[in-house]
């Protein structure tokens, strides 16, 4: 008997269906290519990677929120819930879309956009196009790559979780929740930070904070972020698997 939690054949069939039903991504692909081409052409072919990826960041969280469409009407919910694949496979398709399809699409968009920008520049300056190596004009600060990807994955996971919790106006509600949680977190961090300064000051060793502080906090923040990503995804998955057509109070 086929595995009821995960089967590669079933998952592949579902992924095909999923991508086919989310065909609007092709249109988004064309729009993104156009926008980046224009930006690269205007900036003379050289741009900061993080400025460019800001668009991907926004695109990903909007896309993650748009998953709420699967649960926004009873008809959509029924269609989603009764598709004969496991709840894990359904959720995995969403995660794969956000974590693999979108970044890959983004790299491809940048690749194409760079050459389109060269052609646009050549057209406007009436000169021969000067083709360069792929991504030659994209400046990347490697030190910021890890925090960037962690924040990309955590934001996408948070908005994906939001899409399963708030089936209507998911983007706005999730943003509201993130602001509220951000406020609470900053309060906790501020209070704990103050407590630590008081403790260190009490030990009359303020220098210890500077030596120990930044790298220690960055490592802790990264670990906490990874745990949070897993937690958001887990909540989202649990919500999908426990969802009912008409939500009831038990």
């Amino acid at each position: 008997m086929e595995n009821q939690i995960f089967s590669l054949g079933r998952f592949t069939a579902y992924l095909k269906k999923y991508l086919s039903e989310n065909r609007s991504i092709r249109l988004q692909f064309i729009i993104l290519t156009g926008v980046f081409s224009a930006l690269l052409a205007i900036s003379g072919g050289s741009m900061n990677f993080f400025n460019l990826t800001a668009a991907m960041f926004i695109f990903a969280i909007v896309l993650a929120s748009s998953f709420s469409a699967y649960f926004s009407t009873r008809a959509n919910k029924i269609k989603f819930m009764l598709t004969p694949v496991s709840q894990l496979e359904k959720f995995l398709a969403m995660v794969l879309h956000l974590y693999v399809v979108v970044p890959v699409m983004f790299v491809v968009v940048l690749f194409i956009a760079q050459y389109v920008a060269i052609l646009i520049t050549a057209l406007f300056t009436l000169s021969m196009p000067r083709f360069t190596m792929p991504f030659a004009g994209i400046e990347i600060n490697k030190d910021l790559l890890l925090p960037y990807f962690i924040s990309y994955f955590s934001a996408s996971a948070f908005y994906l979780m939001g899409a399963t919790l708030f089936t209507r106006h998911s983007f706005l509600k999730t943003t509201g929740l993130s602001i509220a949680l951000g406020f609470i977190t900053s309060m906790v961090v501020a209070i704990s930070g103050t407590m630590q300064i008081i403790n260190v000051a009490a030990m009359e060793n303020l220098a210890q904070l500077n030596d120990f502080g930044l790298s220690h906090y960055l490592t802790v923040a990264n670990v906490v972020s990874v745990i949070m990503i897993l937690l958001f995804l887990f909540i989202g998955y649990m919500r999908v698997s426990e969802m009912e057509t008409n939500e009831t109070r038990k």
Partner: protein
Amino acid sequence: MLKVEEMAFSYRRNEYLLNKINFEITPGGVYGLLGKNGSGKSTLLYLMTGLMFPHIGTITIDGIPAGKRLPQTMQNIYLLPEEYDLPAVSIERYVKNNAPFYPMFNREQFDNFLQIFELPQVKDLSQYSMGQKKKFLVSFALATNTPLLFMDEPTNGLDIPSKSQFRKAIALGMSDERSIIISTHQVRDLESMIDRVLVLHDNSIMLNESVMRIADKMEFVRTTSKEDLQGCIYSTFTPQGFVGVRPNVDGVDSLVDLEVLFNSIITNPDVVKSLFV
């Protein structure tokens, strides 16, 4: 195949919409699930398909709780909901996307059902009208050949010719291994097709009997004279004359009138119940 045992369900705390529900769906037959508006017909369908979870009791399909929504269970059931929509894809694409999940899907049958419903070939399913969308979904649902097929108010939104096409499609899509459970309040549309009647009333299954047994126990009267209605537990006047129902003490062979049956249950539940003890 499908077993509902001591099942209770409520939307509000301690206010049961369905209470102490017990019945079984066995292979082969069209089940008519009847009930007043708000009696819980759709809720019962959602519970049977695992879209909602019973608060008390169990609902199992081949021994597995429906609420687990295992792929193995889901590929054996298909629900045609009252509210529906189709994606903006071609017929070909829709079949390619959805048929692989139903191992017994039959493309030839599907094309045949599309022909019965006289559905035009379109590039994009969203071009279909609401009625055509429903007919398309009925065709797909029947072609999946799932052992359990649930339909929630399937004739709503269908025009008169489509209703007879629907009956023809159901007759063709029926088999000994398959059960079709139809929830409806439009009993006239489906009267000739139903083999077994489930009546939901006062939060529970008031009647669960085959049409043959109902005809055996109850005599349905159609007359122009009021005097012929003697002994009826329910009767009413229609433009065609009087209709009524009474205990079939003389073994009279009569055609079951689902509307009259249903009204008799609503008005005299205890009397009707006592006939089937």
